[in-house]
């Protein structure tokens, strides 16, 4: 089955935080980046901007530690890891367990929330003007890197001739 993943091209990101806004509007109805499921980490003086979002890990620690099975995997929907808000007790164990600092505690709803790929149409991808975030087939996620390596190899071969 084709599985899609979110891929971030950090070099394209301008740090506009549009993704945070559209994410919070889509999920909460509020234009409040602090309630977004994606967070842009910035190193301003170096010009590095890195949108951080859930990796939906194969061996997800958040799923392992959830005491109510609210955090679970949905293999039929892009193998995503989601949190069922109706089951979440807000213990924040998943936040403690995730090495990527991902699930967030929503102070409004008093539960933990995380990226759910917006049910197959990620709003961060849709509204990113510079296309720094893309939602692509998992098998092709490193296609750009493979192409880059192939180009480098081709250059080397040209020089060798």
């Amino acid at each position, binding site marked *: 089955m084709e599985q899609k993943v979110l891929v971030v091209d950090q070099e394209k990101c301008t740090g506009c935080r549009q993704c945070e806004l559209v994410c919070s509007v889509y999920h909460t109805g509020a234009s409040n980046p602090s309630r977004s499921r994606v967070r842009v980490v910035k190193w301003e003086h*170096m010009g*590095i901007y890195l949108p951080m979002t859930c990796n939906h890990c194969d061996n997800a620690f958040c799923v392992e530690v959830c005491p109510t099975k609210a955090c679970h995997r949905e293999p039929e929907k892009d193998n995503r890891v989601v949190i069922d808000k109706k089951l979440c*007790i807000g*213990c924040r164990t998943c936040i403690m367990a995730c090495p990527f600092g991902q699930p967030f505690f929503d102070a409004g709803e008093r539960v933990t929330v995380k990226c759910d790929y917006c049910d197959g149409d990620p709003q961060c991808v849709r509204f990113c003007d510079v296309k720094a975030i893309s939602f692509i087939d998992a098998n092709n996620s490193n296609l750009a890197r493979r192409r880059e390596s192939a180009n480098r190899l081709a250059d080397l071969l040209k020089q060798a001739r």
Partner: protein
Amino acid sequence: MGAAHTHSIREGRTPRPQQEWKAMIAIYLYLAGMGAGSFIIGLLIHWTGVILNPPSLPFIELLGYRLDLTKSPIFWGPIVVSMGAPFLILDLGIKWRFMYACLNPRTSWVARGFIILSIFIVLGLLILAKSLLPFKWLYPESSPWLIPEGIAFVFAFATALYTGILLKATKSVPLWNTHLLPVLFLASALSTGSMAIILSLLGSDPIAYHKGAMKVLMYAEQLLVIVEGILLYLFLSRRYRVSEQGKDSVRLLLTGKLRFVFWQGIIFLGLVFPIVLEFISSYYRNSALLWIAGLSLLTGGFFLRLGILRAGVKDRIPMQRLVEIRYGLVKNSKSEFRV
């Protein structure tokens, strides 16, 4: 432009401890540990048949019944645990949903903890009630009671260990991810629990602590404090070597912003001060000093949980290393960051 050029990625290496679990969880861990520890010591005293000081108030009248309080100083641990459990519930986002965790005992250590604590509280309160109630048909000293007492003993041990296992289950925090943590918390539970029993038995006969079974209990408590100190040293020294974040956590405790919690709370109040005061009080036979030592030890037990909880620094993610390498931020050390 006098502003110093800050290096934000390197700043990222300054310890950033977790902010999710705070004092509320520390209180829960402390009361659960201390209550379970005192119950373990209490049951051992009960089984060996040692006669300790009678409490200053041996009986009370309640609803026409005469309640026997002679065993209550060694069996009140479950009350402390049941006082601590609500702190975990209060820390939840949606409090009433704690029942969901009870209904899924096989999912995680938080859920298992609910079950372990619930069984211990029920059995412990049953044994406390058995020792209090004046009903002869209960046969409080009969051998069938050994079965619930034995099960309660096992669950008291599980409760004391669980307080450490709950933190150990968080694999992404190197400071907590060690088998030594549950053992350290068990030692602390036993030392604070035994001191809680000593304090609750002091009321009637303040100078009885230097003779007979109380003296043995005092020695056992002092030994447990020393064992706790050794375990704390082993725990910190091993965590310091395990990873960069383990090192950060230990630095936070020893020299960072948690140094007051560590040196004054854990080391001074929890280990050194009680041992010294108990030594002096045994010379001068001064129960006031023993009270101060006891309260100091109990406070130190709380600071141990608080310090370890607040010093938890998460493991670094691989992409941080990648960014450092990519932007030439790696150190020129031969031992580190060789690409």
